[in-house]
């Protein structure tokens, strides 16, 4: 598989702040790649470098096989971009803006445009100044999904959408993947990434801290288990990988490293299990734990 985006050792400073500090990113062609990080981690800066809007201080970047700074126009023919905060022209209707963006890229699929406007419940006759934040976002999303391109770069695209529209968005992303398009989806909404992405890169303070499939990353996480037992539990505290153990009579709550789950379950069933709930790790926990660990390491 060829790479749609390759980035290595990217550095970018604004005055004294280092927004990017040796960032790496690889996006395979045809995958949905989650680009995760807390606010201020450098997600938008990376995307702007990839679009040739900012010039990197050092490091290498290629988008669709081209240099994003020197060969921007050619690369952009095959790219659709949705910014996190969409501003429109006051006097242009949503429909006019959608068509303009489409034509400024590689062209627009009229059937798909009509279908998307319908699904996103967008009124294309309203003027730019009268749209709400969510509706402005929809204008940019419809333009991007209906454009005839190979790569979609979406920077926190659902920030103004309600839950129903988020579902429409998720279905659209899935359809795009089935069409063979590549999507870079930046987000701090973790459930969205979990649902949609083949692979994830987690960045923090301008560096990539983890990259891989969700399965690859699960070793970093813990499963929460709570159980009601027939008798008092024993031996749990000595098992490797068990954390935050809380025993109250016959009730047990604990967290366990996911690769040690089997041993814990065997130990629990020895005491007789009456009820059991186990919560799979969410990306949110993965996220939290990851940064917590890093901070602890830094503190030491």
């Amino acid at each position, binding site marked *: 598989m060829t790479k749609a985006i390759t980035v290595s050792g990217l550095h970018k400073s604004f005055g004294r702040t280092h927004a990017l500090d040796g960032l790496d990113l690889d996006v395979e062609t045809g995958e949905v790649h989650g680009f995760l990080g807390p606010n201020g981690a450098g997600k*938008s800066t990376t995307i*702007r470098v990839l*679009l*040739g*809007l*900012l*010039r990197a201080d050092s490091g290498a970047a290629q988008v669709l096989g081209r240099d994003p700074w020197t060969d*921007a*126009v*050619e690369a*952009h*023919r095959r*790219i659709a*971009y*949705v*910014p996190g*905060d*969409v*501003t*429109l*022209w*006051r*006097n*242009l*209707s*949503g*429909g*006019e*803006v*959608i*068509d*303009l*963006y489409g*034509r*400024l*890229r*590689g062209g627009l699929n009229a059937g798909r445009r009509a279908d998307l406007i319908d699904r996103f419940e967008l*009124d*294309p*006759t*309203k*003027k730019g*100044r*009268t749209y709400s934040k969510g509706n402005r976002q929809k204008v*940019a999303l419809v333009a991007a999904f209906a454009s005839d391109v190979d790569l979609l*770069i979406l920077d926190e695209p659902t920030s103004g959408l309600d839950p129903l529209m988020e579902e429409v968005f998720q279905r659209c992303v899935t359809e795009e993947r089935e069409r063979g398009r590549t999507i870079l989806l930046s987000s701090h909404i973790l459930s969205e990434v979990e649902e949609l992405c083949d692979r994830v890169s987690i960045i923090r303070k301008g560096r990539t801290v983890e990259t891989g499939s969700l399965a690859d990353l699960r070793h970093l996480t813990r499963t929460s288990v709570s159980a009601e037992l027939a008798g008092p539990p024993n031996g749990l505290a000595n098992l490797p990988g068990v954390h935050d153990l809380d025993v109250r009579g016959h009730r047990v709550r604990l967290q366990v490293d996911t690769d040690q789950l089997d041993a814990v379950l065997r130990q629990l069933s020895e005491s007789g299990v009456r009820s059991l709930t186990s919560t799979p790790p969410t990306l949110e926990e993965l996220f939290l734990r990851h940064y917590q660990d890093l901070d602890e390491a830094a503190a030491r």
Partner: protein
Amino acid sequence: MTTFTGTGVLLRFSLRRDRVLIPVWLAVNALMVLSMPNTLRTLYGTAAERADLVSQLQTNASFRALIGPVFDTSLGALTAWRVGVYAAALAAAMSLLIVVRHTRDEEESGRQELVASGMVGRRASLTAALLAAAVANAVLALLITAGLAGQGAPGALSFGLGLAGVGMVFATMAAIVAQLTESARLARGLTAAVLGAAFVLRAAGDSTTNDGSSALTWLSPLGWLENQRSFAHERWWVLALFAAAVAVQAVVAYELAGRRDLGMSFLPTRPGPPTGRLATVGALAWRLQRGSVLGWSIGFFLAGVVYGGLTDGAADLVRDNDNARQIFERMGGRNGLTDAFLASMVDMLGLIASLYIVASVLRLHGEETSGRAEPVLACAVSRLRWAASHLTIAFGGSALIMLLAGLGFAAGYGRQIGPVLGACLLQVTAVWVIGGVTLLLYGLAPRLAPAAWGIAVAVLLLGWIGPALNAPRIVLDLSPFGHLPKLPGGAMEWGPVCALLALAVLLVTGGLAGLRRRDLTT
């Protein structure tokens, strides 16, 4: 809680937000009015000179249309005549901006929703906005009355109250219009159009009569001001017209405001087309700037017609007055008064055209800082092509409006058509230098780009006031306009014209190179 609860808090808040805006408007207006007696004293020092001036003014319909009739030969009466209409227009503009800013602007931005959810009555916002305008106009009346008291206290009071009266008429007018439109920009535009109509009515009336008695003049609040006859046996009862108009308009505004929901309007925005034909950045730039190009084109053509029509009368007026003639000659050259007047008017329009080019080039800056440029540049559009789309309109548009001004002179004056047209087009080279400086600032240091306004205003003041103050050559040469040959009348000099063109090209190239290399600001 009454419908007015919270008015006091909102008023203090409004005045705090306008703590720069209002003083600047007041200072500019007061300076213009209060400096006039001195200027007139230098130009027309003796009663005989003034009597001569007045007798000529009364017989010239173009001057009456532009400025209004004059009722007495005293310095006070001449001051009220010379600045009345313009000071009133400034007061009206200030008032309508204040009111729209604190009513429709707040609603459109959504901030009003937050305010209205607090301990605030339904009528509090409108009341606070009108009171803020009232405070500003009261201070204006006070400044004018105190400043002109030396010319006669009753006249000064009458004139000050008249200016404030015009201000409040347009404040309450703006309050009505703000109920009608959903867009604050449209509300400002419509109220300004009413102001323009008031000017035209008064001008039409005054061109037919020389004592302000035309019915058309009486239809205009600007006409009421001149009909107060400040410093010339004041007619105090005219002030009652202002009071009545303000009261009626305020009642209408409150009635309308009480009958609608927050954020709604009586003239809802018309929907746009569901599909668009815009396909290039060039088409987009034209769509964004065409309204302004149209407005400037009409304005410059009409200005050409009006100044062209005034030329003969102005030359006659100035001929007998040494001081005034010298000022015109410093501005327009020593080649006969008619030519000097034409040249100085062409020069003035050139200076004003630099405001157009600064505004137009800074569209790039506005598009970039608002975040609208970013998704466009993320399409298959190079930065140079994007910049070129707006720059074509900026540089081409400034040539267009100067050409139209030249055609206006041809229509209004009818002689010397070729030389005047040529003179107008020569101004374009200096205008382009200003455009080039603006682009250079934007390309290299986008944060400093708005400073181009400061440069344009400095050049404007240098060109307008420099000759009147007899400023030394070296100071006047700081402005690109100082290097242009004085045409018509003077000798054509290609050297400086080519140098200005070369400089403009250099500045544009530098600006574009900077833009291509730098990060986009977000």
